[in-house]
């Protein structure tokens, strides 16, 4: 076995040194009653070539090929990824290291994470960002728990129904064993969250909105933050498409106190939904309540600049049950990848790319409306929007699928009454030709 170095002779030398005669004796402390019976039910070892063949067979079971145009976002977005990124990220010094507990030997990782934190803070408009959460959904759950920690005595949180349904499910999972109450905020005709029910409410620790929300709609975050702050709650703003902040105001600049979301858009492949990147930031004041790892700048014995993991008294390995979160391993490789992507895009490129995504989406939105489909929500959108078709769209959808286009996501299973509503997503990867094919098929 090519990963295992042990020759028969090696094993004997080691048995002798240890003073055992065989593996049986080596495992003497494993009681008979705990022993594994027989052999594990796993197929026989495959050579590299048989593995290739096997995985090739599995890949051939994917009828939606990489050449398809998938006009679905809903939390995961197909964007172009420059080849330079996986190429540099693939360097084993990055890939095969672990948590940078020994900072002098991991300055590459640490400076990389510090850069990630900084670019993320700039993108989200927050004072500080951590070194990542598992994904957008768990980040949101942790943000709300953090809101409750900051608020101390309060026991209620409110979350918008226009937040990604899976995110809300994960929040529910995290909150189930607690005594906290979750209030759901409905959305208005324009697709934005209805915050009117908040007014006069009391004991709410935090209110969470998503912008762009699940319908692609840009919330009026400034107004929302004011309304939330008016009831003494923290404003938690989440997102699934950070590219939006190349064009739209950042959540932090709108007044959000905690900002969290999914960073997969930033150079990370869709990959059936994972690994992604939980981006997470907040105001300076709340740093010590933050979950997750933080990298900080410091100096060495000679006064030279360097980076270390810091404020770890928040963390489980120091604080155990009193930690701000149980998170330990995070999404390291994905954070570095996202930083490489942000660095490759640059400020100029990010704006240009965001604008392009916006324009393409508007093109399709307008054209579909002209075919008679109804745009369900009137507020501005980014990248995604919801339309309702007059007739049953499912046959058109199947026809387009046969032509290599996945024409939106049916929302029937997420919201009652949305059976003929579709969430469309258009990124820079989709050409006008493809959009025109969709339009003309809808027109038929």
């Amino acid at each position, binding site marked *: 076995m090519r990963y295992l170095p042990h020759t028969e002779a090696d094993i004997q030398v080691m048995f002798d040194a240890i003073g055992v005669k065989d593996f049986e004796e080596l495992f003497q402390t494993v009681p008979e009653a705990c022993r594994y019976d027989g052999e594990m039910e796993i197929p026989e070892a495959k050579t590299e070539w048989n593995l290739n063949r096997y995985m090739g067979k599995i890949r051939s079971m994917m009828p939606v090929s990489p050449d398809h145009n998938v006009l679905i976002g809903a939390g995961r977005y197909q964007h172009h990824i420059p080849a330079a990124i996986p190429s540099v990220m693939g360097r084993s010094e990055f890939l095969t290291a672990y948590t940078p507990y020994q900072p002098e030997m991991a300055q590459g990782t640490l400076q990389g994470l510090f850069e990630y934190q900084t670019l993320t803070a700039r993108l989200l408009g927050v004072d500080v960002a951590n070194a990542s959460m598992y994904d957008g959904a768990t980040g949101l759950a942790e943000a709300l728990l953090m809101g409750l920690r900051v608020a101390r005595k309060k026991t209620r949180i409110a979350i918008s129904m226009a937040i990604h349904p899976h995110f809300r499910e994960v929040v529910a999972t995290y909150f189930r064993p607690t005594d906290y109450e979750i209030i759901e905020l409905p959305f208005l005709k324009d697709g934005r969250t209805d915050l009117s029910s908040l007014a006069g409410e009391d004991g709410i620790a935090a209110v969470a909105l998503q912008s762009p929300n699940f319908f692609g709609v840009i919330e009026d975050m400034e107004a929302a933050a004011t309304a939330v702050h008016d009831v003494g709650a923290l404003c938690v703003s989440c997102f699934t498409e950070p590219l939006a902040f190349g064009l739209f105001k950042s959540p932090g600049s709108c007044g959000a106190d905690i900002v969290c979301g999914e960073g997969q858009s930033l150079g990370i492949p869709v990959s059936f939904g994972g690994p992604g990147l939980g981006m997470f930031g907040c105001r300076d004041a709340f740093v010590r309540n933050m979950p997750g790892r933080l990298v900080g700048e410091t100096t060495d014995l000679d006064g030279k600049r360097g980076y270390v993991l810091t404020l770890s008294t928040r963390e489980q390995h120091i604080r155990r049950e009193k930690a701000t979160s149980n998170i330990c391993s995070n999404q390291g490789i994905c954070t570095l990848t996202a930083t490489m992507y942000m660095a490759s895009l640059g400020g*100029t490129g990010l704006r240009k790319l965001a604008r392009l995504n916006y324009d393409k989406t508007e093109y399709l939105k307008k054209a579909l409306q002209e075919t008679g489909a109804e745009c369900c929500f009137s507020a501005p959108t980014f990248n995604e929007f919801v339309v309702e078709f007059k007739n049953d769209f499912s046959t058109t959808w199947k026809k387009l699928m046969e032509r290599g286009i996945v024409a939106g996501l049916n929302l029937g299973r997420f919201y009652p009454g949305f059976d003929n509503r579709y969430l469309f997503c258009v990124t820079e990867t989709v050409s006008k030709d493809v959009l025109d094919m969709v339009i003309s098929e809808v027109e038929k």
Partner: protein
Amino acid sequence: MNSAPGQSGLIMDEPLLWEKGKTGRNGMSIPESDVPAAPIPDKLCGNGPDFPDLYEVEVVRHYTRLSQWNFGVDTGMYPLGSCTMKYNPKINEKHAAAPELAAAHPMLGDEYCQGTLRIIYELQQYLAAITGLDAVSVQPAAGAHGELAGMLIFEAYHRSNGQKRTKILMPDTAHGTNPASAALCGYKPVPIKSGNRGILNVGQIRELMDEETAGIMITNPNTLGLFEENIREIAEIVHEKGGLVYGDGANMNAVMGIADMKKCGVDVLHLNLHKTFSTPHGGGGPGAGPVCVVDKLAGFLPSPRVEFDGTTYRLEAYRPESVGRMHSFHGNYGVLVRALCYILTMGAQNLKKVSQYAVLNASYLKVKLKEHLHLAYDRPCMHEAVFSDKKQLEFKVTTLDIAKRLMDSGYHPPTIYFPLVVPGAIMIEPTETESLEELDTFIEVVKQIVTEARTTPELLRNAPQRFKVKRLDETQAARKPCLCG
């Protein structure tokens, strides 16, 4: 140090990203627009973030240079205890990055995802086979996330029995994530002291376990590298009181094909795919922490899992008793692909060999190093052995100094100061992918460092010397945090 592989060579300095670049440069292609510009809602629009503009070469050099300041398993031995830093096979990277998988969208219907679902399904099956448990969810994104899933299952199980239990038994050798995960579910950890043999003793559990207590979290082999020999008896006691046994399977690398977790009495267990199953997790992740349970708890597992009816793979229907969704989609999917590739490459026999050789390597190091470093528990070990700086303290040399000196010698240091029960702990886990020669060199180097601790202790206290930076001031970092540039 003669025999040590560490030497000095050229590396390149490099500023922070935003200390580079010039406005207007670009590092990636952006397609020309083929649609008309749409009007934008001015009120909502911002200026975009202040990112530097770099060109591709600047980006590539930046990260190439940063990488020179790092050390990975491919660079050399990385005996970071409890972390199982084994070799990460290259072929698995290729499969995880295959376009068909990389582009697979998780919101498509099952009929469009047969390949991706099959990978999850097979992994569920094989992880069940490896642990001896019955049902698996791959959603948890890391070990701690798996623990949380487990604690949620504990909570849901007791709730389904109409109970709300408030405590959980927690050995003092437990990893910090265990109490933190339990706390998230409202369980107050009841600490259990390790006995003088380094393992749990039955009497203590019998004393502490009661019907307020949800169960116990046991890491097995534990973080001292010892097999919890009394686990079955302990499980019986816990079960008698209506409790459940959680197994932290982070150290599964020691016992694949050797111990059966169900026979050990474990009800819920997480695995660390990024450790035992060889997936890379540079800079701290991503991991994957699938949670495995016995039959009676299958209904509580996070949903959805993948089912197979002999023809079609499907996301299972809504399961009301489930603890619910743990992740936006199916966990760290790319990590799952790599883990499946690893399992398929190894097969049952090699996986067992992995554990045999992992324990063989650790036992060999233990025997050879205990002459030089104080061994915390001189008993047959599993995949790792915990030493300490006890013998070196008289020279005013600490575990930290030894660790830093090891760095100069070309080794990643072991895990230090954990587990907490061993003061000045030095926790060494070589893994099975290190050769006898490599171990012998490491032993030689440790021996030399131990000698230096006596003869030239300042060499250790001033270490490291070979890196871009000397010893960094962690106190200053925490006192005046600079977290953003």
